[in-house]
C-alpha cells in the first residue's frame, strides 16, 4: 500500500528543490498501456522518459542516450527483468528500481541481490513511485556523499545487532528477528551510515527522505526515534544504542561494520 496518496495528478510529496530538471528515466515494461501511463505520469512531474518494451529495446536506448535511472519490470517476455538487472549492473552503475509483483518476496530479495538499488511492488501508488524515483536520483547524485545501501546485498553490524539490507530485516544479538516499519528501517539505515556522529532532527529528516516517501516533521522524527529505541533497547539492562544529545539531536553509539 502506498504510504500517502494525494488527490491530484501532480503530487507534491516534496519540492523538487535540488533535483536538476529533465532527469532521463528509462521505463522497461512490456504492457503498452502501463508503459504509456507511467511515462505520462513521470513526464507530468518533470522527467524525461523513454519507454522500452523488452531487453533488446532497453539496450538500444542505453546505447544511444545517457540514462539517469532505469525502472525495470521483473515480468518481461524473453530475458526476465532479473537477468537484465544483472547484465545491466555488470556494465554500468546506472540506478535501477525493480518493479516486482506484490508479495513475491523472492523477486525482491533476488533483485536487490543482483544489484538493483530499490524495488517497488506492483500495483504501486503514484506518490510512492514518484518518491522512490526522486529519492534514488538524489542518492545516486551522492548529495551527502553517502554510500548506496543495498548494493551487493550487505549486512550491517553494530553492537551484535545485524541489519540485512536485502531483506530489510533486523536481527537482535541472539538472532531474534525484530520487526521494523518502513520508516524505522530507513531511519536506522540513516543512523548506520552516519554512526557515532550526532545527527540533528533536520539532518535525519533529510536522510530518511532520501530513502522513501517519509513525509514527516521534526516532531515525527522524535516519535520514530523513540519507537526505534524501544525495539533496540527493550529492557533497562539493554546497552544504549541510540543516544539523545541534548539540544543537538541523536547519535548511534556503537561502531558499525559491514559484512557479507
Amino acid at each position, binding site marked *: 500500500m502506498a504510504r500517502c496518496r494525494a*488527490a491530484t495528478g501532480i503530487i507534491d510529496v516534496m519540492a523538487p528543490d535540488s533535483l536538476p530538471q529533465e532527469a532521463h528515466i528509462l521505463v522497461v515494461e512490456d504492457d503498452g498501456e*502501463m508503459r504509456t501511463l507511467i511515462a*505520462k505520469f513521470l513526464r507530468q512531474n518533470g522527467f524525461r522518459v523513454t519507454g522500452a518494451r523488452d531487453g533488446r529495446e532497453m539496450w538500444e536506448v542505453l546505447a544511444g542516450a545517457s540514462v539517469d535511472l532505469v525502472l525495470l519490470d521483473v515480468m518481461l517476455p524473453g530475458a526476465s527483468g532479473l537477468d537484465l538487472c544483472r547484465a545491466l549492473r555488470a556494465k554500468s552503475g546506472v540506478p535501477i528500481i525493480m518493479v516486482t509483483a506484490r*508479495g513475491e518476496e523472492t523477486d525482491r530479495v533476488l533483485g536487490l541481490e543482483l544489484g538493483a538499488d530499490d524495488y517497488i511492488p506492483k500495483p504501486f*501508488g503514484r506518490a510512492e513511485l514518484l518518491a522512490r524515483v526522486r529519492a534514488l536520483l538524489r542518492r545516486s547524485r551522492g548529495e551527502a556523499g553517502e554510500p548506496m545501501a543495498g548494493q551487493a546485498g550487505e549486512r550491517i553490524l553494530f553492537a551484535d545487532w545485524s541489519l540485512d539490507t536485502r531483506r530489510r530485516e533486523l536481527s537482535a544479538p*541472539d538472532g531474534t528477528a525484530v520487526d521494523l*516499519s518502513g520508516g524505522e528501517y530507513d531511519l536506522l539505515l540513516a543512523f548506520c551510515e552516519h554512526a557515532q556522529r550526532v545527527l540533528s532532527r533536520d539532518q535525519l529528516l533529510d536522510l530518511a527522505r532520501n530513502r522513501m516517501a517519509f513525509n514527516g516533521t521534526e516532531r515525527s522524527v522524535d516519535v520514530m526515534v523513540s519507537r526505534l529505541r*524501544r*525495539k533496540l533497547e527493550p529492557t533497562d539492562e539493554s546497552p544504549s544504542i541510540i543516544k539523545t544529545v541534548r539540544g543537538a539531536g541523536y547519535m548511534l553509539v556503537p561502531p558499525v561494520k559491514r559484512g557479507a
Partner: protein
Amino acid sequence: MKQLRRLLPDTLGGRIVLVLLVGLMAFHLGSLWLHQIGTEAVLGSTREAQLAERLVAAKRAVAELPTAERDRTAHALSTASLDMHWTQAPTVQPRQASSARIDALRSRLGELVPELDVTGLRLGYGEDGVADGEASRHLLLGALPLPDGSWLNFSAALFRPPASEHATLLSTTAMAVGILLLGLLVVRLIGRPLRALSDAADRFGGPGPVVPVPEEGPREVRHAAQAFNRMQDRIDRLIADRTQALAAVSHDLRTPIARLRLRAGFVEDGEAAHAIDADLDEMEAMIDSTLAYLRGETESEPRKPADLVAMIETLCHAAADAGAAVTYAGPSQARLVCSPVTLKRAFSNLIDNAVKYGGAARVVLEDKGRDILIRIEDDGPGIPEADMQSVFEPFRRLETSRNRGTGGSGLGLTIARRAVEQHGGTLVLSNPPGGGLLASVGLPKPRN
C-alpha cells in the same frame, strides 16, 4: 510366507469362511481328542475293577489248594493281561519311596473291590531301575499276601488314570473360548484395512496433506481403497484447479489495478480521484488477502525466532499513525520461534478488524511462561453468539451491522485462525461483559 499368502483366499467372504472352517475344524479335532481320552479313562477304570476282582478270585482259589498245586493253578488262571504265579516269598520288595501313582492305584483297587485286602499288598513297576519318569511305566508288578504267609505274585498292564466328567466339560469349554478369541482376533486383522480406509475418509478434507490409503487386504477392500484414492485425487485436482484459477484471476487483476492507479492521477476532479484511490485500496486489500489465503494452503514459511512485541508494536503504530485509537500494553519484548510474516498477518487482520468494526483496538500481551497470550479488544457491537464459529469460514461475512459498508474480503479471520493454528495455538472470539469483541490468541512456546 509368500506361498502361505497365495493359499489365502483373496476375497473378504473367502477369508471369513476360512476362519470359520479352521475354527470349526480345530474344535472338532479337539473334541474328538477329549472324547478319546475320556473313553480311555473309562476303559482304564473298568480294567482296574476287573483286575481287582480277578485277583480276589485267584487269591481265594489259590489259598484253598495244597501248596504243591498252588503255582500250577496260579499259572492256569493267568491270561495275557494278568500273569500270576505263587511263591513262598514275595518277588516284589516293599517300596522305599512312596509314589503318588502307586498309592492312588492301591486305594482305587481297594475302593473298587472292598474284599481285596490292600493293607499287605505290595505294588511296583515292572521296569524298576529304568531312569524314565513314572508316567512312562506300563507294567505293574504286585504281590498279594495269602493267609498262610505265602504270596501270590502278579504282573499286569498299567492304564491311564481316569479323568473326571467334570474336567472334560471344562476343557471343552476352555477350548471353545480359546478358538472364539482367536477367531475374533483373526477377523479383526482381516478388517484392519477396512478400518484404515474409514480413518482415511475421516481425515480427508482436514488439515494436512492428502495421504493415499494403502491398497492392501482382501480384494473388496483393495478395490474400495483404489476407488477412494482415485476420488481423493480427483477432488484434490479439482480444488487445485479452482485455487489456481482464483489465484490467477487475483494475480492478473493487479495489472489493470496498477493502470487504474496511474489513470486516477489524470482525473481532473480531485475528489473523484481520491474516491477511485480508496476503491483501488480496497480491491488491492481483497486481492492481497485472497492470495495470502490461497498461498497458506500450499506454502509454509520457515520458522525462526522473532520478537512478537516488535511485530505488534509496528502494527499498532501504523494503525495509530493512520488515525485509529490503537494501544499496546505488555512487556517490551516476547520472543517466540514462529513464522513471522504469517503471524504478523494474523495480528494485522485482528487489529484491522477491531478498528474497522469496533472503532478502536486495545492490544494486551502476556507472557505466561509456557505460552504467550495476546488479547485484542474493541468497542464495537461484538458478534452474536450463534455466529461465533461461522465468522471463521472463508468468504463469510455477517449480515449484521458488522459489515455494513465496510467491505473486506471475508478472509481476515480465516487467515488469522489458520496462521495461529499453524503455530499450535488457538484463536477464540468472545463478547466480554463490558461490550465489544475480544479476540484471544494463545501461542504455545515450542519446548526443546
